[in-house]
């Protein structure tokens, strides 16, 4: 405890030099927490959005269903199992003809009054004679369609017989999840089942919390985690890529501490000699200097907290705006990311910074072990 008090006193006594080091170290400290917080926030948002819009609490797929092979859709449907907590979705291939152009789409039937996903399916509740569809903004853009437009839709029923009708775009929705947007349009499930002559059938079912988890014959359950693997991968890769950045900043801060330590030991030889002459062992002196260097990290945390906590709290509130760009990887990117700072993240960063600062403080201090107290008292050697 004495060592610690003494170390802190020495450190504060060094004035500007200490505060410069502390400033840089606190930068590194705040940046590490901020960057990871941002990525965690992104991860959380991407997972949340994808769960809300697309995967729910997992999905039960018809065994023939392969989302990457549209040709499987012809066969991949069957009577929807009547388990609780499952919302059926029927998917068929269809073609829309915006202005004489031919565009193949996936036509997805979803119950208009569903609550499982965030899709604005209320807009599909039938009204009058018109058949309503909704589609995402990406799809609307690539087809050149807007809310209220009419477009001819052609599909085949379960026997392969062509059918076609004009449909109204009841709503163009804005989602971060490309998976429910690109290359597809949504229609009321009952309407689609009637259109195709497949009453009661589904291609896949989206589970909510009440689903018990049993998969009947002919259906396979995809857990939420399985469906979110891609997101986890992207996030992991962003984390790894970003870590280099803040590790470099940390390295700079450590360089500063190292440099400072070298100088203190050089300039304070007489002091060291005195300590030893007064009966402190070399180990104790090394400990003193190491603690002194390491204490930089404690000050850095304090300083970092002073400006970091308000800053990060504000960012967590206000969010970090993100650019609207088409992400080819199909990852949900919101307009704003709200950083999330977990306890583990903060404690982990504290440990990292403290341990690293202590190590670089210890390295130059080891020299003290080879010091002859008499020489040291004279202020020679080193």
């Amino acid at each position, binding site marked *: 405890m004495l060592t610690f008090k003494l170390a802190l006193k020495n450190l504060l006594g060094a004035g*500007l*030099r200490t505060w*410069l*080091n502390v*400033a*840089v170290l606190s*930068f*590194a400290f705040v*940046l590490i927490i901020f960057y990871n917080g941002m990525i965690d926030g992104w991860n959380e948002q991407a997972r949340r959005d994808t769960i809300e819009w697309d995967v729910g609490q997992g999905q039960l797929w018809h065994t023939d269903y392969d989302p*990457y*092979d549209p*040709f499987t859709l012809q066969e991949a449907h069957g009577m929807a199992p009547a388990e609780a907590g499952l919302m059926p979705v029927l998917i068929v291939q269809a073609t829309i003809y915006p202005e004489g*152009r031919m*565009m*193949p789409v996936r036509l997805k039937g979803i119950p208009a009054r569903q609550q499982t996903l965030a899709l604005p399916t209320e807009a599909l509740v039938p009204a009058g004679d018109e058949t309503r569809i909704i589609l995402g903004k990406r799809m609307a853009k*690539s087809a050149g369609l807007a809310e209220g437009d009419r477009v001819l839709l052609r599909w085949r029923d379960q026997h392969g017989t062509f059918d076609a009708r004009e449909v109204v775009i009841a709503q163009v929705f804005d989602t971060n999840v490309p998976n429910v947007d690109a*290359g597809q349009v949504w229609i009321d499930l009952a309407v689609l089942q009637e259109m195709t002559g497949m009453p009661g059938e589904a291609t896949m079912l989206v589970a909510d919390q009440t689903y018990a988890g049993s998969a009947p014959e002919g259906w396979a359950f995809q857990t939420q985690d399985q469906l979110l*693997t*891609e997101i*986890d*991968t*992207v996030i*992991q*890769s962003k984390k*790894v*890529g*970003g870590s*280099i*950045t803040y590790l*470099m*900043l940390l*390295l*700079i*801060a450590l*360089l*500063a501490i190292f*440099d*400072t330590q*070298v*100088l203190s030991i*050089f*300039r304070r030889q007489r002091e060291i000699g005195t300590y030893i002459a007064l009966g402190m062992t070399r180990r104790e002196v090394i400990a003193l200097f190491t603690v002194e260097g390491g204490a930089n990290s404690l000050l850095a945390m304090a300083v970092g907290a002073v400006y970091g906590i308000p800053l990060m709290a504000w960012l967590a509130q206000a969010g970090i705006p*993100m*650019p*609207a*760009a*088409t*992400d*080819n*990887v*199909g990852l949900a990117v919101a307009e704003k990311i709200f950083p999330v700072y977990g306890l583990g993240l903060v404690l982990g960063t504290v440990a990292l910074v403290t341990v690293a600062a202590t190590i670089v403080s210890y390295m130059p201090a080891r020299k003290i072990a080879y010091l002859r107290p008499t020489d040291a008292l*004279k*202020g*020679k050697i080193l």
Partner: protein
Amino acid sequence: MIHFLLKGILRDPKRSRLPIIVVSIGVFLTVLLSTWLGGVFGDMVDMNARFDTGHVKIMTRAYAENSAQLPNDLALLGVNDLIDSLETVYPDMDWTPRIRFGGLIDVPDEEGETRAQGPAGGLAVDLLSPDTREIERLDIRGSLVRGRMPETQGEALISDAFAQKLDLEPGEAITFFGSTMYGSMSFYNFTVVGTIRFGSVAMDRGTIIVDIEDARQALDMEDAAGEVLGYFAGGRYDDARAVALRSAFNAEIGERGDEFAPEMLALRDQNDLAGMMDYMDVVAELFVFIFVGAMAVVLWNTGLLGGLRRYTEFGIRLALGEAKGAIYRSLLMEAVLIGLIGSVIGTLAGLGLSAVIQHYGLDFGSMVPNTGMMLPTVYRTKITAQAFYIGFFPGVLSMLLGNALAGIGIYKRQTAQLFKELEV
């Protein structure tokens, strides 16, 4: 004077070595970080450029409007002339044709009859020209899972998962069945010589990569291509230049342009990348700013330490009668020299390592779960003009500032006290 100081610096390593090392390391890290951020923040843009958008891309307007449907019937014609003229006007750029196509991959049994079949998306690039950059650009060699790269025409790569689905080994023959640019049936035999993994589930499900000349024969697209991509020298995207290039090109074509005339798009015109790029620029600048700031603080401290280290020396020099101003000036000159030496060493080292990382990339593949995404697990630095000078700000200025502050002490020294300090 400078000569004298330089001698002092070089001959008295004890005095100058540590500051130079620290400045060098600091500048080295600054340069590295600047190129690293350029690379990491640009990775998404860069991926788009490599796989899809080019730095500029030329298509027919009709093709561009329906590009999602791979409408090769609307492809560019007269591509060789087009590329020749582009190479004349923009000799420093790399112009390369690509064809995207769809079709069926059919695997024969011993009798030559269909054993397995699956829908495939095709990408045809220049694989075989001796000076092709496409292999490196798409990191095809790095994505090989089994087998080898195509070496002659008629050899193809397919995605590994697809090969497994078709129960196909490298060395086996397949037939591509699709339709030509004009809608006729197309049959073309390939030998699968290798399998690749892109990391994107969608692409890994069924992709075939072939040489552009094979695709031209298969799809009856002699002298045609769906798109012609242009890349700036060094693979670095220069937005202002791309936009200017696009405007000039389109203005020239515009007068005689029907819907099949070539039309150029800059990278930022595609995939909504404009917003992303502007944003990345701001964020990268911010990071560099923070970092340079931090570095400046560290080197300031180094300067301070350097000055403090030499209090005794100054004492002696004062005692010998040297003017305080002269000592102070020489201290500052030395600081500048040390800063410059350190900055040059650091910048060279930083650029050197950046160049290595830019070339080879840092592979974090093992740290990322192996489900695969079309995401770079290989990170690269990106050497920009900024990297050449960015290190000098903290390197020289901060050293100077630190020494200047430390040197103020010189003026405070009392001669009487000096001798006390000097008693050894």
